[in-house]
């Protein structure tokens, strides 16, 4: 039996472009787990794959768009949310998921993130946060912890990292959650909830990067990082995202924000009906 035939037997195989496998991700990387949780969520919800668009940016997780068997766009660095805004507004019937990395969404693409959240454009944004730019060999990024070593912080990082869930909440996201690659079931449920909810939804997934970030910071193998997640993660639904800063001792995970607010599309539709009546 060939590897491909083996793959085809997987219950979620129909959601994937199998001819594109094996994927590019390193052993122990959390991105494959995110892919698994995402397609499991699609399967559980019975999402119409002809009406789903996955948009990604540049970086390791950026390749995810090319692995899922639906309309998908692997955009320029930092621009997936802006491009997704165009897709959603031009065809409101489509379900949009943006899946990208911490550098793509919060450094080069940070402005697009806050403004899409502010507008409350209907899309689910999933961020694989591995604390560094893995694709380019491990430079520091907007979420790299203080004192961490990367190729561009050879003496330790002196920049304060973003607390992504706080940022998302402050910018106006209607749903904000954080999980790690260890929380497979909870992450899947969170993705399902986000996909069913209207508005700008954000899920941060803390993801191991054993080959690049982990190696430089002596974090051991992926399994060691997973064990560590189990030790230091604390589930606190409804916790104030402002206080949910990630530290070496503790990672607060859970659903921080779950509110209702008119979406850009809904407000536009209301305006449209008023104008048509004139």
């Amino acid at each position, binding site marked *: 039996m060939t590897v491909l035939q083996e793959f085809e037997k997987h219950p979620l195989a129909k959601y994937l472009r199998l001819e594109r496998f094996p994927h590019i991700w390193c052993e122990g990387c959390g991105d494959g787990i995110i892919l698994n949780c995402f397609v499991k969520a699609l399967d559980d919800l019975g999402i119409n794959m002809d*009406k789903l668009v996955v948009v990604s940016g540049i970086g390791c997780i950026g390749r995810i768009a090319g692995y899922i068997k639906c309309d998908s766009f692997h*955009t320029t660095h930092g621009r997936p949310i802006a491009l997704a*805004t*165009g897709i*959603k507004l*031009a065809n409101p019937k*489509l379900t949009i998921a943006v899946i990208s990395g911490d550098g793509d969404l919060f450094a080069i693409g940070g*402005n697009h993130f806050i403004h899409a959240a502010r507008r409350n454009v209907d899309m689910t944004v999933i961020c694989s946060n591995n604390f560094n730019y893995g694709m380019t060999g491990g430079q520091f990024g907007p979420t790299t912890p203080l004192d961490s070593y990367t190729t561009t912080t050879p003496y330790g990082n002196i920049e304060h990292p973003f607390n992504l869930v706080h940022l998302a909440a402050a910018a106006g996201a209607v749903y904000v959650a954080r999980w790690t690659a260890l929380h497979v079931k909870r992450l899947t449920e969170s993705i399902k909830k986000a996909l069913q909810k209207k508005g700008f939804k954000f899920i941060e997934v803390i993801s191991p990067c054993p080959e690049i970030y982990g190696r430089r910071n002596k974090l051991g193998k992926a399994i060691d990082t997973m064990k560590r997640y189990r030790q230091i993660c604390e589930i606190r639904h409804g916790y104030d995202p402002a206080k949910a800063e990630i530290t070496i001792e503790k990672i607060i995970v859970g659903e921080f924000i779950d509110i209702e607010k008119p979406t850009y599309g809904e407000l536009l539709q209301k305006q449209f009906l008023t104008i048509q009546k004139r």
Partner: protein
Amino acid sequence: MTMHREVLTGKHLMQGDIACAEGAIAAGCKFFAGYPITPATEITERMARRMIEVDGMFVQMEDELASMAAIIGASWAGAKAMTATSGPGFSLMQENIGLAVMTETPCVVVNIMRGAPSTGLPTEGAQQDVMQCKWGSHGDYEIIALAPASVQEMFDLTIECFNFAETYRAPTFLLADGFTGHLWERVVIPSREEIKTVERKKPIVPADKYVPFKPDEDLVPPMACFGEGYRVHVTGLTHDELGYPKTTDPKIQHELVNRLCEKIRKNSDKIIRTYKFMLEDADVAVIAYGIPSRSSLNAVKRAREAGIKAGLLRLITVWPFPEKQVEELSNHVKAIVVPEMNCGQVVREVERVAKETPVHFSSKIGGEPHSPSEIFEVIRRAAKA
């Protein structure tokens, strides 16, 4: 519903920017994303008011990077899409203009050119972005750019831009100077039936037989949009005909990039538009585009009155460059005059093509267009030389 017409048939006194917006609507534009910038803001303002009236979508984005990204997304969602900007915003758009080229996304980008570099002269017209329009994004590629010289052409050529974008699946540019953008003139808008519009080619095969980036004979692949059941993957990476990244096979990059260039080059006869005035017996030919072509027309008439056999070749299409037309002309005139509102851009293309024929350049920057007498003086010098 009469007030919500997509085509405002009739005679109007209209500003160039507004005529551009109306041309877009008449061409079937259903999505506009923009960011305010002088002297293109009036296009964005007009679209803000008009898009909703014609069941279209207007969004003001956070910057021009986002505007350009949004129109690419909208185009893949099936809408005819446009953005409008000026120099500083045009610089920001270059990144995703490259993405539009690589992903063969039909879209229209309007650049109402103002004095530059940098913030430059926000309220004054210029023609300093002509080379940027051709070469601004990284890599090798071909695009289409049209240069209007009247408010009527701001309307007509915007429609033409949409038609080219849809036909060739390439970003297409309306490259207007700030003077034409802010000019008020009479515009005649024809009836809807008289306006020729083009829709992108769709696949005629079922999804399992569809190869998204496999070109037809015209080198343009049929385009399935998102939500139509074809499940297309689109990437800015070098990709094969299936649309999948292929970055380690030199043959794939070679074939893709050459095709992206060739689909424009091989169709250049269908894309290139010029206007010729008194060129049959001319000794001196003025080659101009945009607002300087209007001063040039007057200067040519003056030269004829003064006994100089002058003529005008007005470039309506700037990119792809009308090489054949300029070369033919250079073979039977004694001298060429190129007036531009920059320090020398299209003149370089003219010199490249004209070879032995002397080319006299007339530069005008700073916010004033050439006067007819300035161009007349250059014609007179060229005729004597």
